[in-house]
């Protein structure tokens, strides 16, 4: 069955520029949502997806190969599990000290150290864990899709070449 090549979408220049331009502010936004979440709308989950979308945008704009060069993209699956491990650690470390699972520190009504608007409390760590897991999942999954697509393309090309030789 002869297969017509799928119409390849050539990213417009503006998308490329836009993608690059958005990279840094996007991440800032994501981190802001992550850290502000405890006081306002947003949490680790939303931040993780936003960060992922921005990275994925790079892939859309510059092709899937580009993603391989972005370090935060390449190690996404591992980040996912680092995040999960972090969350579990936040949950289970207190049990070694006789507290119950997922006890957060400082305890209720205790004073927490500040750094500007940022408070040093374990829920933030937990949120970071959520962020990492979600980010890792989204980027990891989309990257695998992209890789699978590349592989298909290569397969198709090879098939076509063989067909041409015959």
């Amino acid at each position, binding site marked *: 069955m002869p297969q017509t090549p799928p119409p390849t979408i050539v990213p417009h220049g503006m998308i490329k520029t836009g993608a690059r331009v958005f990279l840094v502010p996007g991440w800032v936004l994501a981190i802001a949502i992550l850290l502000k979440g405890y006081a306002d709308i947003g949490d680790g989950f939303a931040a993780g997806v936003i960060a992922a979308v921005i990275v994925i945008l790079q892939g859309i704009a510059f092709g899937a190969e580009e993603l391989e060069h972005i370090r935060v993209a390449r190690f996404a699956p591992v980040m996912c599990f680092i995040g999960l*491990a972090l969350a*579990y650690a936040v949950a*289970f470390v207190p049990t070694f000290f006789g*507290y*119950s699972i*997922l*006890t957060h520190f400082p305890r209720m009504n205790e004073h927490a150290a500040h750094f500007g608007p940022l408070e040093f409390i374990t829920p933030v760590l937990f949120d970071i864990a959520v962020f990492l897991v979600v980010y890792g999942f989204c980027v990891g999954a989309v990257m695998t899709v992209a890789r699978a697509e590349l592989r298909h393309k290569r397969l198709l090309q090879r098939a076509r070449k063989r067909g041409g030789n015959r």
Partner: protein
Amino acid sequence: MIALPLGILMFGSILLALLDGTRKRNGWIAVAILGCALIATMRLGWHIYDHGVQEMAVGGWDQGIGIVLRIDLVGIVFAVLCQLVLLSALTYEVIADVGARVFPALVLFMAVGLTGLTFTGDAFNFYVFFEISMISSYILVNYGESARQFRAAFVFITVNLLGSVLFLIGIAGIYHTTGFLDMVRIREQMPLVQENPAILTATIIFVAFSVKLGLFPFHFWLPTVYTGTRPAVAAILSGALANIGTYGLIRFGVDIFPRELEAASAVLIILGCASIVYGGVQAVSRHAPAEVLAYSAIGQVGYIMIALAFGGTVGLAAVILYSVLNSLNKTVLFLGISAHGWLATAAVAIGAFSVAGVPPVGGFFAKYALFDLAISEREPVLVMLIFVGSVISFVYMFQMYRRRIAIDTGPDAPPVSKQSLQAVSFTLAIGLIVIGLFPEPLIHVIQMAAASLTQGVAP
């Protein structure tokens, strides 16, 4: 102490997720982790046996604010059972060479889910752990990655997703009508809820768990999935995952909706009878052993339903005993039919006798408990039905066994498997015999569990 089994499983599964599960060494690490978790769970069970229900407020919050982990004997029985089944299946697969990097990790994640849902005392948290085990099973069903497995996986995912959604709706309904998520608080509040919303919520939760269990007429997904998947996965699905259904029905039915359960007992009995007869009859002429077992599972669920419908300490003890033995039977049989050699054949024979309820194999006491229930309730029709069911189970089990022997001694007999591979199911089968000879501890614990259910969670 409550945290220990969960902690071991959670960190263990992360570790395995990062390792390559196809390596023998890593497989054994997973087995060791699961074994440690099992020991920790049993230790916890011992503690509960001595001191009654254990609670832990997650995050140190008072009851009603946060999530409470609350483990009673029923929960621990199911937790140990699920872990044991997972451990056997995992050991089997490790010996047989794991074919996918993620297999051990997924088994461990499923153990996290199953253990968590038996530990939790919070309705929504139950759902979350339920989803953890479901999502691992969605992936596990693909294990083997042939066309057949993908088909099975797709069926499995579609149907069970529907079940999960219904369950979620049920949970939300409970929250809306009672205002609580903590199961004890819900229990206290439920009698105040009007009849109509309560029974609607109860119905939808019943449907959700029946789908997991494969009760007639919600069972249509089950045969394809059990036959389509690899034997180890089928053992996990029928031996461990299906317990969610029974456990959920006990937790939600007996604990939260006792009034509705009583009102629905006629429906439960009708569906149970239909399931026994339908599953049994279907199983008779199936040729693929896995399919026989799948239909047999549908039949066995019927007994659980009937015992549940009668309720009371005797009925609930029968429910738990039946599910424990049924899970073990199915694990022995699924692992046994896929290996070849005399040890595996012996395991299949023992499993078959157990399903048919022949002493001194453990399955006898499951049948005993049912007859006891039916006779003490003075239900001659029920006695007849259980009798007919056990006649049919004799027929299909031994037709299956006969076919297996015919194939094994025939001209194109399959090659004999590794001794250690056969030994997995054989060891479990010996365990069944030990249960059949000395069931006292098991029955004692189960009766205590059932009594604690009927007399309230706090001992």
